Protein backbone atom coordinates (compact mmCIF):
# COMPACT_ATOMS: atom_id res chain seq x y z
CA UNK A 1 0.00 0.00 0.00
CA UNK A 2 1.30 3.44 -0.79
CA UNK A 3 0.22 6.94 0.07
CA UNK A 4 0.60 9.80 -2.36
CA UNK A 5 0.55 13.52 -2.04
CA UNK A 6 -1.56 14.86 -4.87
CA UNK A 7 -2.18 18.35 -6.16
CA UNK A 8 -5.08 19.15 -8.42
CA UNK A 9 -7.43 21.96 -9.31
CA UNK A 10 -11.06 21.50 -8.32
CA UNK A 11 -13.56 24.03 -9.64
CA UNK A 12 -10.74 26.50 -10.18
CA UNK A 13 -9.22 26.14 -6.72
CA UNK A 14 -5.85 24.44 -6.11
CA UNK A 15 -6.28 21.54 -3.68
CA UNK A 16 -3.88 19.06 -2.14
CA UNK A 17 -4.50 15.77 -0.37
CA UNK A 18 -2.67 12.76 0.95
CA UNK A 19 -4.38 9.73 -0.56
CA UNK A 20 -4.11 5.98 -0.59
CA UNK A 21 -3.38 4.52 -4.04
CA UNK A 22 -6.74 2.82 -4.23
CA UNK A 23 -8.84 5.88 -3.36
CA UNK A 24 -11.28 6.61 -6.19
CA UNK A 25 -11.74 10.14 -7.49
CA UNK A 26 -15.41 10.13 -6.49
CA UNK A 27 -14.48 9.35 -2.87
CA UNK A 28 -11.80 12.05 -2.89
CA UNK A 29 -14.39 14.58 -4.02
CA UNK A 30 -17.17 13.50 -1.70
CA UNK A 31 -15.39 12.35 1.43
CA UNK A 32 -12.16 14.34 1.50
CA UNK A 33 -13.23 17.58 -0.17
CA UNK A 34 -16.88 17.24 0.97
CA UNK A 35 -18.20 18.05 -2.50
CA UNK A 36 -21.21 15.79 -2.25
CA UNK A 37 -22.98 17.07 -5.35
CA UNK A 38 -21.27 14.31 -7.32
CA UNK A 39 -23.33 11.19 -6.71
CA UNK A 40 -22.43 7.52 -6.52
CA UNK A 41 -24.98 5.43 -8.38
CA UNK A 42 -24.09 2.01 -9.71
CA UNK A 43 -20.40 2.18 -8.77
CA UNK A 44 -19.72 -0.10 -11.77
CA UNK A 45 -19.06 2.37 -14.62
CA UNK A 46 -22.58 2.18 -16.02
CA UNK A 47 -24.84 4.90 -14.71
CA UNK A 48 -22.90 8.18 -14.97
CA UNK A 49 -24.26 9.68 -11.72
CA UNK A 50 -20.63 10.31 -10.73
CA UNK A 51 -19.74 12.20 -13.92
CA UNK A 52 -17.22 15.04 -13.46
CA UNK A 53 -15.02 16.84 -15.95
CA UNK A 54 -11.36 15.83 -16.00
CA UNK A 55 -9.37 18.35 -18.03
CA UNK A 56 -12.69 19.41 -19.56
CA UNK A 57 -13.90 15.97 -20.57
CA UNK A 58 -16.75 14.15 -18.85
CA UNK A 59 -15.62 10.93 -17.14
CA UNK A 60 -17.02 8.52 -14.59
CA UNK A 61 -15.26 9.44 -11.34
CA UNK A 62 -15.97 6.00 -9.84
CA UNK A 63 -13.58 4.62 -12.46
CA UNK A 64 -10.66 7.01 -12.04
CA UNK A 65 -8.14 6.80 -9.21
CA UNK A 66 -7.63 9.97 -7.20
CA UNK A 67 -3.89 9.70 -7.94
CA UNK A 68 -4.66 9.72 -11.67
CA UNK A 69 -6.25 13.15 -11.22
CA UNK A 70 -3.09 14.63 -9.73
CA UNK A 71 -1.93 17.62 -11.76
CA UNK A 72 -5.26 17.76 -13.60
CA UNK A 73 -8.27 20.06 -13.62
CA UNK A 74 -11.46 18.66 -12.13
CA UNK A 75 -14.85 20.31 -12.39
CA UNK A 76 -17.85 19.12 -10.42
CA UNK A 77 -21.48 20.20 -10.36
CA UNK A 78 -20.58 22.67 -7.60
CA UNK A 79 -18.51 24.54 -10.18
CA UNK A 80 -21.44 25.36 -12.45
CA UNK A 81 -23.00 28.22 -10.49
CA UNK A 82 -21.01 31.44 -10.73
CA UNK A 83 -21.45 34.39 -8.33
CA UNK A 84 -24.86 33.17 -7.22
CA UNK A 85 -26.09 32.81 -10.79
CA UNK A 86 -27.16 29.44 -12.11
CA UNK A 87 -25.42 28.24 -15.24
CA UNK A 88 -27.80 27.94 -18.23
CA UNK A 89 -27.57 24.14 -18.00
CA UNK A 90 -28.88 24.32 -14.41
CA UNK A 91 -31.54 26.79 -15.49
CA UNK A 92 -32.52 24.38 -18.28
CA UNK A 93 -33.11 21.49 -15.89
CA UNK A 94 -35.20 23.79 -13.67
CA UNK A 95 -37.24 25.35 -16.47
CA UNK A 96 -37.87 22.15 -18.42
CA UNK A 97 -38.44 19.89 -15.42
CA UNK A 98 -35.42 17.83 -16.41
CA UNK A 99 -35.52 15.75 -13.27
CA UNK A 100 -37.79 13.86 -10.96
CA UNK A 101 -35.75 12.30 -8.15
CA UNK A 102 -32.63 14.26 -9.10
CA UNK A 103 -30.15 11.48 -8.57
CA UNK A 104 -28.78 11.46 -12.12
CA UNK A 105 -28.97 15.24 -12.47
CA UNK A 106 -25.44 16.30 -11.47
CA UNK A 107 -23.98 13.81 -13.96
CA UNK A 108 -26.46 14.79 -16.65
CA UNK A 109 -25.61 18.46 -16.21
CA UNK A 110 -21.86 17.85 -16.35
CA UNK A 111 -22.23 15.85 -19.55
CA UNK A 112 -24.56 18.49 -20.98
CA UNK A 113 -22.14 21.25 -19.99
CA UNK A 114 -19.23 19.48 -21.72
CA UNK A 115 -21.30 18.86 -24.85
CA UNK A 116 -22.26 22.54 -25.11
CA UNK A 117 -18.65 23.59 -24.58
CA UNK A 118 -17.62 21.79 -27.78
CA UNK A 119 -20.89 22.02 -29.73
CA UNK A 120 -22.95 25.16 -29.24
CA UNK A 121 -25.85 23.92 -31.37
CA UNK A 122 -26.24 20.16 -30.91
CA UNK A 123 -29.03 18.31 -32.67
CA UNK A 124 -31.43 16.20 -30.61
CA UNK A 125 -29.55 13.11 -31.82
CA UNK A 126 -26.20 14.57 -30.71
CA UNK A 127 -27.63 15.34 -27.27
CA UNK A 128 -29.03 11.82 -26.96
CA UNK A 129 -25.71 10.29 -27.97
CA UNK A 130 -23.78 12.54 -25.58
CA UNK A 131 -25.92 11.51 -22.59
CA UNK A 132 -26.03 7.83 -23.56
CA UNK A 133 -23.64 7.02 -20.70
CA UNK A 134 -25.87 8.76 -18.15
CA UNK A 135 -28.86 6.78 -16.97
CA UNK A 136 -32.14 8.26 -15.70
CA UNK A 137 -34.48 5.69 -14.15
CA UNK A 138 -37.38 8.04 -13.30
CA UNK A 139 -38.90 9.51 -16.35
CA UNK A 140 -37.04 8.87 -19.54
CA UNK A 141 -35.04 11.44 -21.36
CA UNK A 142 -37.52 13.79 -23.07
CA UNK A 143 -37.26 16.61 -20.56
CA UNK A 144 -33.55 16.09 -20.08
CA UNK A 145 -33.05 16.64 -23.82
CA UNK A 146 -35.27 19.74 -23.60
CA UNK A 147 -33.20 21.02 -20.68
CA UNK A 148 -29.98 20.75 -22.69
CA UNK A 149 -31.69 22.40 -25.67
CA UNK A 150 -32.86 25.22 -23.42
CA UNK A 151 -29.29 25.72 -22.18
CA UNK A 152 -28.01 25.72 -25.76
CA UNK A 153 -30.48 28.45 -26.70
CA UNK A 154 -29.62 30.54 -23.66
CA UNK A 155 -25.89 30.20 -24.40
CA UNK A 156 -26.45 31.23 -28.01
CA UNK A 157 -28.25 34.31 -26.71
CA UNK A 158 -25.10 35.07 -24.76
CA UNK A 159 -26.26 34.03 -21.30
Amino acid at each position, binding site marked *: MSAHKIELTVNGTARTAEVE*SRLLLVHLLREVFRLTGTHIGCDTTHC*GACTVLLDGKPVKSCTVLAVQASGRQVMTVEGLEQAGKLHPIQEGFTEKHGLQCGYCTPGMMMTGFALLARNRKPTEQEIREAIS*GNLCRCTGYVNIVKAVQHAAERLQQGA
Partner: protein
Amino acid sequence: MIPSAFDYHAPATLPEAVALLARYGDGAKVLSGGQSLLPLLKLRLGQAAHLVDIGRIPGLEYVKEEGKMLRIGGCTRESALEESDVVRTRYPILLDTARVIADPLVRNRATVGGNLAHGDPGNDHPATMLALGAQVVAVGPKGERVIPVDQFFVGLFTTALQPDEILTEIRIPAPPPRSGGAYVKLERKVGDYATAAAAAQLTLSASGAVEQVGIGLTNVGVTPIRATAAEAHLRGKKPDAAAIGEAARLAGQACSPRADRRGTVEYKREMARVMTMRALRKAVERAGGK
Protein backbone atom coordinates in the same frame (compact mmCIF):
# COMPACT_ATOMS: atom_id res chain seq x y z
CA MET B 1 -16.63 -0.67 -3.97
CA ILE B 2 -13.01 -0.30 -3.03
CA PRO B 3 -10.24 -2.35 -4.61
CA SER B 4 -7.82 -4.24 -2.38
CA ALA B 5 -4.72 -2.25 -1.59
CA PHE B 6 -2.00 -1.85 -4.19
CA ASP B 7 1.01 0.30 -4.82
CA TYR B 8 0.66 2.88 -7.58
CA HIS B 9 3.59 3.78 -9.81
CA ALA B 10 3.61 6.57 -12.35
CA PRO B 11 6.77 6.15 -14.44
CA ALA B 12 7.72 9.07 -16.67
CA THR B 13 9.33 6.96 -19.40
CA LEU B 14 8.80 3.60 -21.10
CA PRO B 15 12.11 2.12 -19.87
CA GLU B 16 11.13 3.00 -16.29
CA ALA B 17 7.74 1.38 -16.80
CA VAL B 18 9.27 -1.78 -18.24
CA ALA B 19 11.76 -1.93 -15.35
CA LEU B 20 8.90 -1.73 -12.84
CA LEU B 21 7.05 -4.52 -14.63
CA ALA B 22 10.20 -6.65 -14.71
CA ARG B 23 10.76 -6.05 -11.01
CA TYR B 24 7.25 -6.91 -9.86
CA GLY B 25 6.47 -9.65 -12.39
CA ASP B 26 3.03 -11.24 -12.07
CA GLY B 27 2.14 -8.94 -9.19
CA ALA B 28 2.05 -5.92 -11.48
CA LYS B 29 -0.60 -4.77 -13.93
CA VAL B 30 -0.36 -2.03 -16.53
CA LEU B 31 -2.89 0.76 -15.97
CA SER B 32 -3.82 2.65 -19.13
CA GLY B 33 -7.31 4.21 -19.31
CA GLY B 34 -8.43 1.97 -16.47
CA GLN B 35 -11.93 1.41 -17.81
CA SER B 36 -11.59 -2.39 -17.71
CA LEU B 37 -8.92 -2.81 -15.04
CA LEU B 38 -10.43 -0.56 -12.35
CA PRO B 39 -13.88 -2.23 -12.50
CA LEU B 40 -12.16 -5.63 -12.24
CA LEU B 41 -10.17 -4.52 -9.20
CA LYS B 42 -13.23 -2.90 -7.61
CA LEU B 43 -15.33 -6.03 -8.07
CA ARG B 44 -12.31 -7.99 -6.83
CA LEU B 45 -12.46 -10.24 -9.84
CA GLY B 46 -8.81 -9.36 -10.26
CA GLN B 47 -6.01 -8.33 -7.94
CA ALA B 48 -2.72 -6.58 -8.41
CA ALA B 49 -0.09 -5.66 -5.85
CA HIS B 50 1.30 -2.97 -8.16
CA LEU B 51 -0.31 -0.77 -10.77
CA VAL B 52 2.06 0.74 -13.31
CA ASP B 53 0.28 3.76 -14.80
CA ILE B 54 1.52 4.35 -18.34
CA GLY B 55 -0.89 7.26 -18.75
CA ARG B 56 1.74 9.80 -17.73
CA ILE B 57 4.35 8.68 -20.26
CA PRO B 58 4.48 11.30 -23.01
CA GLY B 59 4.23 10.36 -26.67
CA LEU B 60 1.86 7.39 -26.52
CA GLU B 61 -1.26 9.21 -27.74
CA TYR B 62 -1.41 9.74 -31.50
CA VAL B 63 -3.20 8.70 -34.68
CA LYS B 64 -1.24 9.29 -37.87
CA GLU B 65 -0.78 7.86 -41.32
CA GLU B 66 2.89 7.35 -42.11
CA GLY B 67 4.65 5.19 -44.66
CA LYS B 68 1.55 3.30 -45.85
CA MET B 69 0.60 2.57 -42.26
CA LEU B 70 -1.89 4.00 -39.83
CA ARG B 71 -0.11 4.24 -36.50
CA ILE B 72 -2.13 4.45 -33.32
CA GLY B 73 -0.32 5.11 -30.04
CA GLY B 74 -1.14 2.55 -27.36
CA CYS B 75 -2.60 5.14 -24.97
CA THR B 76 -4.78 6.85 -27.60
CA ARG B 77 -8.26 7.41 -26.19
CA GLU B 78 -11.24 5.96 -28.00
CA SER B 79 -12.70 9.48 -28.17
CA ALA B 80 -9.55 10.60 -30.03
CA LEU B 81 -10.20 7.95 -32.69
CA GLU B 82 -13.74 9.26 -33.07
CA GLU B 83 -12.45 12.79 -33.54
CA SER B 84 -9.56 11.90 -35.86
CA ASP B 85 -9.93 13.20 -39.42
CA VAL B 86 -7.80 10.43 -40.89
CA VAL B 87 -9.96 7.82 -39.15
CA ARG B 88 -13.19 9.49 -40.23
CA THR B 89 -12.16 9.77 -43.86
CA ARG B 90 -9.90 6.78 -44.47
CA TYR B 91 -10.79 4.11 -41.87
CA PRO B 92 -14.59 4.09 -41.42
CA ILE B 93 -14.37 0.59 -39.89
CA LEU B 94 -12.37 2.08 -37.00
CA LEU B 95 -14.90 4.85 -36.53
CA ASP B 96 -17.72 2.24 -36.53
CA THR B 97 -15.84 0.34 -33.85
CA ALA B 98 -14.86 3.22 -31.58
CA ARG B 99 -18.40 4.59 -31.61
CA VAL B 100 -19.94 1.42 -30.15
CA ILE B 101 -17.42 0.84 -27.37
CA ALA B 102 -19.09 1.33 -23.99
CA ASP B 103 -20.42 4.92 -23.86
CA PRO B 104 -19.02 8.40 -24.57
CA LEU B 105 -17.88 8.97 -20.98
CA VAL B 106 -15.96 5.70 -20.87
CA ARG B 107 -14.47 6.49 -24.29
CA ASN B 108 -12.97 9.70 -22.88
CA ARG B 109 -10.73 7.49 -20.71
CA ALA B 110 -10.55 4.09 -22.42
CA THR B 111 -7.57 3.48 -24.69
CA VAL B 112 -7.18 1.51 -27.91
CA GLY B 113 -4.14 -0.32 -26.56
CA GLY B 114 -6.02 -1.30 -23.43
CA ASN B 115 -8.93 -2.61 -25.47
CA LEU B 116 -6.54 -5.05 -27.16
CA ALA B 117 -4.18 -5.85 -24.27
CA HIS B 118 -7.06 -6.74 -21.96
CA GLY B 119 -7.65 -9.83 -24.12
CA ASP B 120 -11.40 -9.79 -23.57
CA PRO B 121 -13.23 -11.51 -26.45
CA GLY B 122 -16.13 -9.12 -25.75
CA ASN B 123 -14.04 -6.08 -26.60
CA ASP B 124 -14.66 -4.54 -30.00
CA HIS B 125 -11.25 -3.57 -31.43
CA PRO B 126 -9.86 -7.11 -31.61
CA ALA B 127 -12.23 -8.25 -34.37
CA THR B 128 -11.60 -5.05 -36.31
CA MET B 129 -7.84 -5.41 -35.99
CA LEU B 130 -8.10 -9.04 -37.18
CA ALA B 131 -10.08 -7.88 -40.21
CA LEU B 132 -7.55 -5.12 -40.92
CA GLY B 133 -4.51 -7.39 -40.55
CA ALA B 134 -3.01 -5.10 -37.92
CA GLN B 135 0.29 -5.46 -36.09
CA VAL B 136 0.81 -4.86 -32.40
CA VAL B 137 4.04 -3.29 -31.18
CA ALA B 138 5.24 -4.30 -27.72
CA VAL B 139 8.18 -2.91 -25.75
CA GLY B 140 9.92 -5.01 -23.10
CA PRO B 141 13.32 -5.34 -21.44
CA LYS B 142 14.87 -6.60 -24.69
CA GLY B 143 13.46 -3.78 -26.76
CA GLU B 144 10.65 -3.67 -29.25
CA ARG B 145 8.94 -6.49 -31.11
CA VAL B 146 6.11 -6.54 -33.61
CA ILE B 147 3.36 -9.12 -33.18
CA PRO B 148 0.92 -9.90 -36.02
CA VAL B 149 -2.57 -9.55 -34.56
CA ASP B 150 -3.35 -13.11 -35.71
CA GLN B 151 -0.91 -14.31 -33.06
CA PHE B 152 -1.89 -11.82 -30.39
CA PHE B 153 -5.02 -13.32 -28.82
CA VAL B 154 -3.94 -16.49 -27.09
CA GLY B 155 -6.86 -17.32 -24.79
CA LEU B 156 -9.50 -15.85 -22.53
CA PHE B 157 -8.01 -12.61 -21.14
CA THR B 158 -4.62 -13.84 -22.37
CA THR B 159 -2.52 -12.21 -25.07
CA ALA B 160 0.96 -12.75 -26.48
CA LEU B 161 2.23 -9.89 -24.29
CA GLN B 162 4.70 -10.95 -21.62
CA PRO B 163 4.15 -9.62 -18.07
CA ASP B 164 7.03 -7.16 -18.59
CA GLU B 165 5.88 -5.91 -21.99
CA ILE B 166 3.83 -2.83 -22.81
CA LEU B 167 1.70 -2.39 -25.90
CA THR B 168 2.93 0.87 -27.39
CA GLU B 169 1.51 1.03 -30.90
CA ILE B 170 -0.97 -0.52 -33.31
CA ARG B 171 -0.04 -0.52 -36.99
CA ILE B 172 -2.66 -0.91 -39.68
CA PRO B 173 -1.77 -1.26 -43.37
CA ALA B 174 -3.24 1.66 -45.32
CA PRO B 175 -6.07 0.37 -47.51
CA PRO B 176 -5.38 0.34 -51.26
CA PRO B 177 -7.90 1.93 -53.65
CA ARG B 178 -11.31 0.19 -53.90
CA SER B 179 -11.18 -0.82 -50.23
CA GLY B 180 -13.94 -0.64 -47.66
CA GLY B 181 -14.66 -1.89 -44.21
CA ALA B 182 -17.37 -1.92 -41.58
CA TYR B 183 -18.03 -3.05 -38.02
CA VAL B 184 -21.58 -4.07 -37.14
CA LYS B 185 -22.57 -4.89 -33.56
CA LEU B 186 -25.72 -6.23 -31.99
CA GLU B 187 -26.06 -4.95 -28.43
CA ARG B 188 -28.97 -4.98 -26.02
CA LYS B 189 -28.39 -1.37 -25.03
CA VAL B 190 -25.76 1.35 -25.29
CA GLY B 191 -22.61 0.31 -23.48
CA ASP B 192 -23.28 -3.42 -23.53
CA TYR B 193 -20.85 -6.01 -24.79
CA ALA B 194 -21.84 -7.48 -28.13
CA THR B 195 -24.36 -10.29 -28.34
CA ALA B 196 -22.41 -10.79 -31.54
CA ALA B 197 -20.50 -8.41 -33.79
CA ALA B 198 -18.57 -8.67 -37.05
CA ALA B 199 -15.80 -6.67 -38.67
CA ALA B 200 -15.19 -6.91 -42.40
CA GLN B 201 -12.50 -5.22 -44.47
CA LEU B 202 -12.06 -5.90 -48.17
CA THR B 203 -10.43 -4.69 -51.36
CA LEU B 204 -12.02 -5.13 -54.76
CA SER B 205 -10.16 -5.66 -58.03
CA ALA B 206 -10.76 -3.44 -61.07
CA SER B 207 -13.30 -5.97 -62.29
CA GLY B 208 -15.15 -5.88 -58.96
CA ALA B 209 -14.03 -9.23 -57.55
CA VAL B 210 -12.83 -9.58 -53.96
CA GLU B 211 -9.05 -9.35 -53.95
CA GLN B 212 -8.37 -9.18 -50.22
CA VAL B 213 -10.74 -9.75 -47.33
CA GLY B 214 -10.52 -9.96 -43.56
CA ILE B 215 -13.40 -10.94 -41.25
CA GLY B 216 -13.28 -10.81 -37.44
CA LEU B 217 -15.93 -11.78 -34.90
CA THR B 218 -16.58 -10.40 -31.40
CA ASN B 219 -17.79 -12.23 -28.28
CA VAL B 220 -18.64 -15.57 -29.88
CA GLY B 221 -15.73 -17.61 -28.52
CA VAL B 222 -13.03 -17.55 -25.83
CA THR B 223 -10.92 -15.36 -28.10
CA PRO B 224 -11.84 -12.98 -30.88
CA ILE B 225 -12.22 -15.12 -34.00
CA ARG B 226 -10.93 -14.67 -37.51
CA ALA B 227 -13.41 -16.26 -39.93
CA THR B 228 -10.85 -17.73 -42.32
CA ALA B 229 -13.20 -20.12 -44.17
CA ALA B 230 -15.56 -17.23 -44.88
CA GLU B 231 -12.63 -15.15 -46.17
CA ALA B 232 -11.43 -18.00 -48.41
CA HIS B 233 -14.90 -18.43 -49.87
CA LEU B 234 -15.10 -14.77 -50.88
CA ARG B 235 -11.62 -14.37 -52.32
CA GLY B 236 -11.70 -14.09 -56.11
CA LYS B 237 -15.51 -13.93 -56.24
CA LYS B 238 -17.88 -11.09 -57.05
CA PRO B 239 -19.35 -10.05 -53.69
CA ASP B 240 -22.95 -10.70 -54.75
CA ALA B 241 -25.76 -11.78 -52.44
CA ALA B 242 -25.00 -15.48 -52.88
CA ALA B 243 -21.29 -15.14 -52.13
CA ILE B 244 -21.89 -12.88 -49.14
CA GLY B 245 -24.65 -15.17 -47.87
CA GLU B 246 -22.41 -18.23 -47.99
CA ALA B 247 -19.47 -16.38 -46.40
CA ALA B 248 -21.74 -15.22 -43.59
CA ARG B 249 -22.97 -18.78 -43.07
CA LEU B 250 -19.35 -19.96 -42.81
CA ALA B 251 -18.60 -17.19 -40.30
CA GLY B 252 -21.53 -18.38 -38.18
CA GLN B 253 -20.04 -21.89 -38.29
CA ALA B 254 -16.65 -20.56 -37.20
CA CYS B 255 -17.83 -19.35 -33.82
CA SER B 256 -18.18 -21.22 -30.56
CA PRO B 257 -20.32 -19.02 -28.34
CA ARG B 258 -21.45 -19.77 -24.82
CA ALA B 259 -25.05 -19.40 -23.71
CA ASP B 260 -25.62 -16.55 -21.25
CA ARG B 261 -28.08 -13.75 -20.60
CA ARG B 262 -27.42 -12.41 -24.08
CA GLY B 263 -28.74 -15.54 -25.73
CA THR B 264 -28.43 -19.21 -26.53
CA VAL B 265 -25.62 -20.76 -28.53
CA GLU B 266 -27.87 -21.10 -31.60
CA TYR B 267 -29.08 -17.50 -31.36
CA LYS B 268 -25.56 -16.09 -31.07
CA ARG B 269 -24.30 -18.19 -33.96
CA GLU B 270 -27.20 -16.93 -36.07
CA MET B 271 -26.53 -13.33 -35.01
CA ALA B 272 -22.85 -13.74 -35.91
CA ARG B 273 -24.02 -14.81 -39.36
CA VAL B 274 -26.37 -11.83 -39.70
CA MET B 275 -23.79 -9.33 -38.43
CA THR B 276 -21.20 -10.73 -40.87
CA MET B 277 -23.65 -10.38 -43.74
CA ARG B 278 -24.40 -6.76 -42.83
CA ALA B 279 -20.73 -5.90 -42.31
CA LEU B 280 -19.78 -7.40 -45.66
CA ARG B 281 -22.57 -5.56 -47.49
CA LYS B 282 -21.52 -2.26 -45.96
CA ALA B 283 -17.83 -2.95 -46.66
CA VAL B 284 -18.60 -3.65 -50.34
CA GLU B 285 -20.68 -0.48 -50.56
CA ARG B 286 -17.86 1.56 -49.01
CA ALA B 287 -15.36 -0.02 -51.38
CA GLY B 288 -17.44 1.39 -54.21
CA GLY B 289 -18.86 -1.93 -55.37
CA LYS B 290 -22.64 -1.46 -56.01
